């Protein structure tokens, strides 16, 4: 099994498998890259509406093909229909938000459900027509990964390159528009056009991913990798790269797993792998993960206890045996009393407490969003001039 897994992972287990594994990896990479900015621009749900809105377009394109007398299913026509109706869905959401009092999430929900429902109705209508070539239209909903054709994988590779290239070229512009669109507008940047460019990329990823993971799941490839990446870094550049890597790995591993085990539907497995990465990131990422946060909280409690003990010892009070031993390890306590170092540390702790207290009284609303703000050395968190002011006021 392991040997077979190794072969699949290195694209040596057969042409079809290699095509699927490489293609879905490329799709995942494109999704992660584009999805980063969608996520930060708070457009995650809009991309879900976009994917659901492709369904009526696919059905309509099929009907158009029948009406024009085209033979059977013409894939470019169907994908073009998907793209057009997906984009129309997004434009409808924007129009609803702009011209009515609807909030964005209600507009998204309305368009998503209505468009999808319309698509289902059209598919049912097509089913009742006495016309051939309609087989497989329903597969756009859940995807059919295993039969990926060579040219599909190539399209995904090109898409991944395009996504990476556009992101690199427009990095600072996309970052600006996602962070502060008002300021961007004020500087004269065409915020709306940049938004459209981003949505166009998202639409491209959606349409190209339709046949692979299906329209219901393609949003997962756009959203889960950047969500996972967020836990690892505070820098946007790193986050984009990590999201691309997570996306690519999800595609790679997911396709591999579905190749090794016969009854697993590839699209769902890919999404589950991505979800697994998210869970891992959520729990164990050092920057913002749960385990790291718990560790920091524990360290904080220790630091707090330490400071309280030092201050008590300074004024002649006492501390628990455990704490005394801990202080001894740090060189603050020996032979039943504070050392010189310990006294210095105790005085620093006392000053720190007084200054933080002053800050809390004077400016309750301004505390930074770091969990250790009351305990960390104040000189390292607040600017020097503010600390001077606090010192004066605390006297």
């Amino acid at each position, binding site marked *: 099994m392991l040997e077979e897994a190794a072969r699949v992972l290195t694209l040596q287990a057969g042409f079809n498998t290699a095509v699927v594994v490489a293609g879905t990896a490329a799709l995942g990479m494109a999704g992660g890259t584009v999805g980063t900015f969608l996520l*930060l621009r708070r457009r995650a749900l809009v991309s879900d509406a976009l994917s659901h809105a492709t369904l009526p377009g696919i059905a309509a394109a099929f009907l158009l093909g029948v009406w024009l007398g085209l033979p059977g299913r013409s894939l470019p026509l169907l994908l073009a229909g998907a793209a057009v109706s997906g984009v129309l869905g997004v434009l409808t959401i924007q129009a609803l938000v702009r011209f009515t*009092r609807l909030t964005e999430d209600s507009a998204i929900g309305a368009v998503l459900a209505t468009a999808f429902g319309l698509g289902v109705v059209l598919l049912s209508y097509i089913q009742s027509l006495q016309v051939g070539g309609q087989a497989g239209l329903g597969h756009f909903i859940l995807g059919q990964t295993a039969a990926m054709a060579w040219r599909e994988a190539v399209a995904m590779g090109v898409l991944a390159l395009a996504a990476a290239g556009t992101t690199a*070229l*427009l*990095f*600072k*512009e996309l*970052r*600006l528009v*996602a*962070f*502060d669109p*008002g*300021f961007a*507008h*004020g*500087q*004269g*940047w065409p915020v709306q056009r940049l938004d459209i460019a981003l949505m166009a990329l998202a639409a491209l990823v959606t349409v190209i991913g339709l046949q692979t993971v299906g329209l219901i799941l393609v949003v997962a490839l756009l959203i889960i990798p950047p969500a996972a990446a*967020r836990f690892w*870094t*505070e*820098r*946007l550049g790193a*986050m984009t790269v990590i999201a691309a890597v997570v996306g690519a790995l999800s595609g790679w591993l997911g396709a591999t797993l579905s190749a090794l085990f016969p009854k697993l539907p590839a699209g769902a497995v890919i999404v589950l792998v991505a979800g697994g990465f998210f869970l891992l990131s959520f729990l164990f990422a050092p920057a913002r993960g749960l385990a790291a946060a718990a560790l920091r909280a524990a360290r904080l409690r220790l630091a707090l206890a330490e400071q309280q003990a030092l201050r008590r010892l300074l004024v002649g009070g006492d501390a628990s045996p455990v704490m005394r031993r801990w202080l001894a390890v740090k060189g603050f306590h020996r032979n039943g009393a504070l050392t010189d170092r310990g006294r210095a540390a105790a005085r620093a702790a006392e000053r720190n407490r007084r200054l933080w207290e002053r*800050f809390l009284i*004077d*400016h309750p*609303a*301004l*505390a*930074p*969003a*770091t969990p250790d703000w009351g305990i960390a050395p104040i000189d390292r*968190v*607040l*600017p*020097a*001039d*503010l600390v*001077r*002011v606090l010192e004066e006021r605390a006297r």
Partner: protein
Amino acid sequence: MQYLWRTPGARDDAGQTPMGPSPLVVRGLTVAYHRKPVLWDVTYVAPPRGLIAVVGPNGAGKSTLIKACLGLVPTVGGAIEVFGRPLRKQRRLVGYVPQRESVDWDFPVSALDVVAMGRYGMIGWFRPVSRSHKEAALHALERVGMADFAHRQIGQLSGGQQQRVFLARALAQEAQLYFMDEPFAGVDAATERAVLQVLRALDAAGRTVVCVHHDLQTVAEYFDHALLVNARVIADGPVGEVLTAENLRAAYGGRPLPFEVAGA
């Protein structure tokens, strides 16, 4: 009142600044949110230099006025000129410090990243932020006393520090006309001093600063000119002439005044 018009920054041989277009001219500006008029037929000519405070009661449209001057809200009517030409041609000359609440503090950017955004207009399309621009951004952070915090993620800064970062961003724009939306609101004492220092330095350098200011008690101390609005212009000119009891009553509409005005 006659104002001396001056071209921004230029001085002739005698040290006087020669005549030139006003930094900001607003003509007949009207703005409505969902058919409710927020600003009504506002006309204003800014003096050629100095620190200008925009004051008025809550909901008077002060923020909206600033945003309309920046082209951030749609207008129903009126025109805005910056240094004699329409706003959209002069964006390079205009800087903006917004209100603090409108930002996502969890966004993965550092203080330096945010300040560097002020330089994007100069960098232009597609090019990355070069070292020299990063240094200019760092220099702006120094001017607000935040150089040590350049690489902190912005959510980890205190409220006053965040305000200073946005101020530094505007400074990095190297603009001639600055709009600031309540830069003194809800900040600590040191930040307040830092902001004031920056404003005075901008004034000395011949720039114009238009600030929405909430605290009537400090207007006279910080600013030279004032514009009193309540959906329409009540009064404008030097601070002392604007903040009369009569004007304030007209603006605040019979509500109890926030403080005693001499001669009320």
